[in-house]
């Protein structure tokens, strides 16, 4: 059995948009999603957030427009033959340039997202290259510092949708002692195919942080239920998942058959929760789940004082 190590994982910094995690080097335009100070490409400490870069590019583009305006003004003045023409061209040109400048000042924040979008299209190759460098850095550091490697892969995973990245994160997580106070992920690690490592991870999360078991995880478990059952300890993982989802009445209403299959394996506190939900919901009272819950109640908990305080409608129906 793999020896697990205790670690302290830095919480993942949340941003409203995934692209806000990107930084770009002012010098070589290399991208990074990690937090290094020096650029891996040129070695300079010149990283700025991409949104700041967009503002710089927007201001530069606006400056170019003003230069074009001044150039046209100058051209007009140079081609003028009379003093009146010079005055009109100079006065008109400067007035139009100032007007343009005033409008541009108000429009920087509006124009920046548009500029950012165009710029990303142009810099696609550098963006991919930067992320590749990040992945290589994470992989190379793994033998020396697994915690850091996991944090790097987790950060990369916020942008890169790759099962390979998820598998690497999962293999690292399996080597850590997981605790409730850790900032753990689950839905972002779900794979397309069944994986025993992921199944074991779901089982652990169901016990220590059941609130992470949500709709997508449930659908993954349902899709691969047969594979879960074929692996050692798979039934226990499914029972733990059921134990996690009975915390929400909504899941009991939506997935009664799945819960019914593993209700017998639930620990007392989880079964009590399920019992309360089933006995108080009129839509569930005559379901197959209710029958199963009644059987379990009658065989195990009929004389349990914790159950006596609960409405016994179900017990009386059997």
């Amino acid at each position, binding site marked *: 059995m793999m020896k697990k190590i205790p670690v302290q994982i830095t919480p993942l910094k949340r941003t409203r948009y*995934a692209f806000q995690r990107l930084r770009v080097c002012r010098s070589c335009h290399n991208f990074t999603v990690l937090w290094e100070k020096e650029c891996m490409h040129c070695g300079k400490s010149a990283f700025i957030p991409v949104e700041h870069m967009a503002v710089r590019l927007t201001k530069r583009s606006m400056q170019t427009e003003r230069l074009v305006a001044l150039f046209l003004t100058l051209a007009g003045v140079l081609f003028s033959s009379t003093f009146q023409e010079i005055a009109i061209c100079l006065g*008109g040109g400067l007035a139009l340039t100032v007007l343009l400048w005033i*409008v541009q000042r108000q*429009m920087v924040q509006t124009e920046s997202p548009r500029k950012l979008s165009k710029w990303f299209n142009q810099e696609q190759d550098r963006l*991919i290259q930067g992320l590749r460098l990040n992945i290589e850095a994470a992989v190379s550091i793994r033998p020396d510092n697994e915690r850091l490697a996991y944090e790097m892969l987790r950060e990369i995973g916020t942008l890169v949708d790759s099962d390979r990245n998820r598998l690497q994160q999962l293999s690292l997580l399996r080597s850590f002692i997981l605790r409730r106070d850790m900032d753990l992920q689950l839905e972002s690690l779900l794979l397309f195919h069944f994986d025993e490592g992921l199944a074991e991870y779901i089982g652990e999360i169901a016990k220590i942080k059941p609130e992470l078991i949500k709709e997508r995880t449930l659908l993954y478990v349902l899709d691969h239920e047969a594979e879960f059952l074929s692996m050692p300890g798979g039934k226990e993982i499914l029972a733990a998942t059921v134990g996690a989802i009975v915390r929400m009445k909504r899941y009991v209403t939506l997935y009664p058959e799945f819960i019914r299959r593993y209700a017998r394996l639930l620990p007392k506190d989880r079964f009590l929760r399920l019992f309360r939900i089933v006995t108080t919901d009129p839509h569930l009272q005559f379901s197959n789940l209710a029958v199963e819950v009644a059987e379990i109640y009658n065989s195990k908990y009929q004389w349990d004082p914790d159950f006596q305080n609960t409405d016994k409608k179900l017990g009386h129906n059997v």
Partner: protein
Amino acid sequence: MIAYGCLGILFLFVVIRIILYYTHRKRPFPREEIDRQVLALINDRQERS
């Protein structure tokens, strides 16, 4: 004549730019779209490679 021509071009240039700026302000470019675009750029290239 050429001088006034330059002034005319400048006038058109400034007016068109200002109209475009105000049009862009009326229909701001959503950040959600940038997010979708970046994720598509990264992950479509990943799939192809």
